[in-house]
């Protein structure tokens, strides 16, 4: 029974998404697929539990019968780290192998979601390198392609792993560079013995966050139809200019959140003339009633926050582009993108999977 270790060298490159996409497709192709997150570094604490958010989500999404403690068996909590620093032993390797063994039973393929960097997990002696070795899982590296220099990371990983590097997914490729990447970069990597399983274009919809998520993060009062909370915000724009310049400024981006002062009626109305997903109004100032009317006409919700504009922008930027992958619309889009772009035939072949 083969395992596939999905790895990355930095955060937010689309690792979870690739896991979901691969599981989804492999299941449709008739395979029994399991999922595991061998090492969890970023853990979520609730009153009742400590758990891995991504693992929880994927377990629910695919209705996996396995217990969460098995899907995410190693939680590197603050307490664990402190114990190790104080001289305690870090013996998770067995725990990990046992969980993996249990999950593998009756499955054709195990998809393992890696940590965020090559270093993470080292403190418990379970770095990506180590885990993929221990569990005999070849590595699919997901990387953000920006410039040719992005290839450094791919080549470095190859040096570490040698044959264990199955191949790469080049994600977040800016559309104008797509042809170039396909024509030049893919052959180059192949010549170095690194197959490219997919080249995925950057996609504003996938990078966006929902209006609801933005509201949850910023807090404040939400004005408008709750159904619009699902709407995706693809960009953030700040309204702090003169009225004359506002329209041209706001027109540069579609499906955006516009952050501006609650008293800037002129900018609010200008933003509503353009493609705006949500108005975030700062300074604890409620907009005039006609702005609310206009927003309703244009099907745009308003979030009123108490913070000033600068603070709100900083806070909004924290969530932006750093969102986990939990909306059904986004999932569907990514799965269909992967369906089109990902070389599943090659994956199955390399892993020795044979479709019934």
């Amino acid at each position: 029974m083969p395992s596939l270790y999905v790895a990355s060298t930095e955060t937010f490159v689309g690792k979870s998404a690739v896991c979901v996409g691969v599981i989804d497709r492999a299941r449709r192709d008739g395979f029994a697929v399991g999922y595991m997150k061998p090492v969890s570094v970023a853990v979520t604490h609730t009153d009742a539990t400590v758990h891995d958010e991504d693992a929880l989500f994927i377990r629910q999404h695919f209705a996996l019968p396995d217990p969460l403690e098995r899907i995410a068996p190693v939680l590197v909590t603050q307490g664990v780290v402190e114990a190790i620093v104080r001289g305690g032993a870090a013996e998770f390797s067995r725990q990990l192998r046992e969980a993996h063994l249990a999950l593998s039973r009756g499955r054709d393929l195990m998809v393992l979601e890696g940590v965020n960097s090559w270093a993470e997990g080292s403190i418990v002696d379970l770095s990506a390198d180590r885990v993929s070795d221990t569990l005999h899982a070849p590595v699919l590296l997901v990387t953000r392609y920006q410039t040719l220099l992005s290839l450094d990371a791919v080549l470095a990983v190859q040096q570490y792993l040698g044959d264990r590097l199955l191949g790469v997914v080049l994600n977040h490729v800016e559309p104008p560079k797509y042809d170039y990447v396909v024509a030049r970069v893919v052959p180059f990597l192949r010549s170095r013995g690194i197959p490219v399983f997919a080249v995925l274009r950057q996609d504003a919809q996938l990078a966006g966050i929902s209006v609801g998520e933005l509201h949850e993060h910023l807090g404040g009062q939400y004005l408008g139809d709750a159904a619009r909370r699902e709407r995706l915000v693809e960009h953030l724009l700040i309204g702090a200019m003169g009225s004359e310049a506002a329209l041209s400024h706001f027109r540069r981006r579609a499906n955006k959140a516009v952050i501006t002062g609650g008293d800037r009626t002129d900018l609010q109305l200008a933003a509503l003339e353009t493609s705006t997903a949500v108005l975030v109004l700062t300074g604890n100032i409620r907009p005039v009633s006609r702005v609310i009317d206009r927003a309703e006409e244009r099907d745009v919700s308003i979030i009123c926050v108490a913070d000033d504009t600068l603070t709100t922008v900083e806070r909004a930027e924290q969530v932006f582009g750093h969102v986990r992958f939990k909306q059904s619309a986004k999932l569907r889009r990514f799965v269909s993108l992967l369906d089109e772009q990902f070389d599943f035939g090659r994956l199955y072949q390399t892993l020795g999977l044979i479709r019934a």
Partner: protein
Amino acid sequence: MLDAIFAPRAVAVIGASPDPARLGHRVLRNIIDHGYAGRILPIHPQATTILGLPSYPKVSAAPGPIDLAVVVVPARAVLDVVEDCGRAGVAGLVVISAGFKEVGGPGRALELQLLERVRHYGMRMIGPNCLGIIDTTTRLNASFAALMPAAGQIAFMSQSGALCTAILDWSAGRGIGFSRFVSLGNKADVDEVALLRSWGADPANRVILAYLEGIADGPAFIAAARDVTRHTPVVAIKSGTTAAGTRAISSHTGALAGSERAYEAAFGQSGVLRARSMQELFDVALAFAYQPPIGGDRIAIVTNAGGPGIIATDAIERSGMRLAELGDATLARLRAGLPPAASCANPIDVIGDARADRYEVALAAALADPAVDAVLVLFTPQAGSEPERTAEVIARLAAQHGKPVLTSYMGAASIGPALAILNQRRIPNYAFPEQAVAALRALVHQHAWCTRPAGEHVSFAVDRERVRALFARVRAAGRIELGEIEAREVLDAYGMRLPRSELAHSPEQAATLAAQIGFPVVMKISSPDILHKSDIGGVRVGIADAAAARDAYEVIEYRARTYSRDAAIWGVLVQEQVRRGREVLVGVSRDPQFGPLIGVGLGGIYVEVLQDVAFRLAPLTREEVREQIRSIRSYPLLRGVRGDPPADLAAIEDIVLRVAQLVEDFPEIVEMDINPLMVYPNSEGAMVVDARIILQG
């Protein structure tokens, strides 16, 4: 048009009240008191008579036909009474009641329902939330204003009700009359466009004035104004022109304020005269209302004092008019009739001790001179002056010639009766000469507008399908901004000349492309997030060989990344290096009220520092474009200074017209810039070096 509102045979006042404290009482009293000759029907649920007139519980219960209903009931009751009016065949409504769109939320919904009822029954409506209307030709005062203005030939519309009451009060003191006086309120149905068309068709209005805060349908306004201004002058004052003013307008009206540039262009292109102050609005209005149209821009001045004569002369020169050169016959008449100390050349100085007879000699001679188009008479009170007799003389002579005569009686205490005579005899008088000159200039402007030749609309053969297909591709990719290569394709499809260019994604590719294009080349960053490419070092020129192209690629991409880590970088554009010419910019921004606003200016510092850009609204005629280019302050640089050959102006016109056609063909283009357009001398054409296009999101 709108006769049911301004010339009704019968008026119902819904909400008429026996209680003098109520607005409905005031409105009914105004209709009764000011001489309206038609039938008046108070509508009140219980009363049987109000102010001596039989009252009815509702319009449908009153004897018809009723043309106009004035509605003064609380907002929540308005729908029912309007429904009743519709059923009873009422054709016009003036809804004074407030509590609609201006309060937002449910008020807005109520207004939409009201409008739906009005449209359903084919009625026309002024308001809601207005002061009412006054028509002195039918003596109908259907308003709650405290005054009835004198009859006159000035039609006035206002988006501010309070301003209306203030002006009524002020004009009563000045003896200024109106033909029609309307507070537009929320203009749910009848707006400035409908009033303009209606009033423009009636010779009782010699001039139309408008106080505007915003115009909802810009193109309709321009079309209506173009039709009307050909025969009737329209003078508008538009508030909210400064940054702070614009913000105030937005807060006040809840509507996005149109761009000041768009308003300026709209007024200019439709012949609407723009007043900068309330003072100027009425100064100009009086000249149009009282005096005949002017035939040219040659002005004669008759004065009894040197100083004011020079002030007036300066003002005339400054405002682009000419001081008339008096003919020999006129000079002879003046020499014969005036004392030796008088100055017979223009300005004609009849000197300080002049009585009415000397003014008569000078004014008669000036008016008779075919080289004089209008006369400005200045009067300062001095020992021996005869203000009233002089006023009589002026009025008599002015009436004999078909030329405008304006006066500036300077002073106040001693000239009151003379001012009354002037006003009564329809001579516009101004406290100071500059005001009179501003009014004269408006007359000249109107003359020029009426006599200018009709423009030529040009249409080029273009490849519209190619652009349509390209826009579809961009949208399918989920984008709204076109990449450089795509923007170039659009311009190429619209027949503009462009240098060869290709997008490179690596140093090696840049070197290859540069070799194909031919050295030297220009290289520049291609990124939607970097607007000022050269400011960040994102442009390199004069790249002479492959090694330099590779280096340039790396440096440019490095600088772009340093400038913004998150910027989307599409690549580096490798472009044929074109020879230098004069750099011009052509920009388009779609104004929400008026449509595509096209700006033309000289590139570089002229645009960035001096903001020297002239704006016009598409569609454009060749004449309008020609005039637009000539109105740039730095135009002399295009025409050629210090021995430079002139730039190919026809090529610029051509590009602007093609751009205008493009944005008319594709309303989804909301922003567009051609910067720079390299313009070559004489007839060597122009080349688009860089362009960006943004589509409606």
